[in-house]
């Protein structure tokens, strides 16, 4: 399968690494040979008809932070690469943007138009234009998969849509952001203030320099929109979510809750067409009470009852589990060049 990677940061490079590591295994188990024919970042595009040398691409990106320094690379944009280079599948891994969805939105639409399947970890475009994207993919008869956009390695979309395909999912609740879960867990364990723990998380690289997306619940809301659309068929977008973050949670509030057997977690919930992100009291013994930077989702199914999945919500390597499963699913369904 001929693959193009657009966005070569944490996720794009993680994919290159895992593809190198799993080259033989993919061939043996699935007769799948993934040829990365192009890699694009903000600096340009590296391209090779017969497949790029991923080790070289990784070392160029790590040393120079610009893929344009790969031998023979050009100042070619993502859109141009998608339109001009022959490939079966586009991996879209540029930064998430919840205001415009760009540049990911244009990359995905260009991919569909060029008759290419798209696999993405980028939640912004999905949270804003889910319906349009899914419709365009179908119109162009290509596959569009995005397991990595919600919960990193935690399998939830494919679990609900494929393994639980006989069930109707009536409600979803979950912790969909690792940073806020880390902060709340630490506040709970150490009795520290929100500001203290946030600062510490930033120093450790667990939280972004601008933590707004995480702590205000915006990241959770984007993922919730994707789950509502993909799993429950609700035509919702980002602006439909009632969103509150964790900035006002205090150590005293956590202590009072604890005395009553509760913990405080930032929960995304879809129920009765209502989408909400807010800090909630969770009984200590409840399956949603998972600690640290983990993510968790509980699916309320009409046949199975409750199904809960827990997993790492981010990570350069862990997230590749989701991306690989999407690539393999497309390979199984479509084979080469279809």
């Amino acid at each position, binding site marked *: 399968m001929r693959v193009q990677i657009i966005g070569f940061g944490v996720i794009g490079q993680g994919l290159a690494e895992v593809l190198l590591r799993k080259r033989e295994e993919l061939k043996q188990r699935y007769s799948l040979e993934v040829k990365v024919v192009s890699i694009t970042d903000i600096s340009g595009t590296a391209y090779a008809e017969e497949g790029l040398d991923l080790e070289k691409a990784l070392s160029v990106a790590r040393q120079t932070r610009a893929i344009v320094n790969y031998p023979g690379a050009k100042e070619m944009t993502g859109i141009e690469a998608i339109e001009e280079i022959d490939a079966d599948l586009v991996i879209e891994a540029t930064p998430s943007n919840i205001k415009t969805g760009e540049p990911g939105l244009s990359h995905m639409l260009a991919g569909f138009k060029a008759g290419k399947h798209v696999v993405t970890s980028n939640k912004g475009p999905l949270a804003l234009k889910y319906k349009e994207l899914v419709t365009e993919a179908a119109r162009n008869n290509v596959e569009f998969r995005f397991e990595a956009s919600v919960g990193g390695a935690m399998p939830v979309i494919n679990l609900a849509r494929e393994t639980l395909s006989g069930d109707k999912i009536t409600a979803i*609740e979950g912790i969909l952001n690792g940073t806020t879960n880390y902060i709340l867990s630490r506040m709970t364990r150490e009795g520290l203030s929100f500001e203290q723990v946030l600062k510490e998380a930033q120093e450790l690289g667990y939280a972004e320099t601008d933590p707004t997306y995480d702590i205000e619940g915006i990241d959770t809301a984007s993922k919730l929109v994707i789950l509502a659309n993909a799993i429950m068929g609700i035509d919702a977008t980002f602006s439909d979510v009632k969103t*509150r973050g964790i900035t*006002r949670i205090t*150590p005293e*509030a956590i202590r*009072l809750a604890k005395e009553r057997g509760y913990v405080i977690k930032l929960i995304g919930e879809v129920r009765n067409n209502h989408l909400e992100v807010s*800090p*909630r*009291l969770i009984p200590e013994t409840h399956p*949603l009470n998972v600690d640290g930077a983990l993510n968790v989702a509980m699916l309320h199914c009409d046949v199975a009852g409750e199904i809960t999945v827990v997993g790492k919500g981010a990570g350069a390597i862990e997230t590749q589990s989701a991306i690989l499963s999407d690539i393999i699913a497309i390979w199984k369904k479509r084979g080469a060049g279809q």
Partner: protein
Amino acid sequence: MDMRVSVDLELKDTPGQLLLALEPISRYGGNVISIIHLREEEKLRSGRVPVHFTIDVPDEASLERIINELEEQGVRVTKLGEVTKKERITLLMIGHVVDTDLRDTIDRINELEGVMVSDLSLAMPHPDKESSAIVDIEVSQGVDRRRVMERIYSIAKEKNLEIVRSLEV
């Protein structure tokens, strides 16, 4: 919506009487919550045994059918009363909980019919800092919990309090 009722019965002191009483309850969609059997304590002069049932029934009509059937079978129904089920909402309030007149906050919640603040614990780290309260609210059966939450959120907005409610509310 289920209604919960308490029923006092007098059964004949012969084997199988309890089963006889249970049968119509389940047939008409009732659900037994508890049975208190006062066998030893006070066997009545009539030779009958008093039993206290708490059951959930789907509606008034099925309750009526159950009672009729019991009486037809010779079970004496001596007392019948509706028990109001109470549900609890637990939530945290974070902000200037005391300075924004806690008394008034509680009164305005209690104003709603069938709604009562039954417990409250307060944490005040420092007079200048925000305080927190964890509150239990008893809600009678039939009261729309969403309306209760709407009232609480409107008070919270006015007083700039952050509300953290439990998952199932």
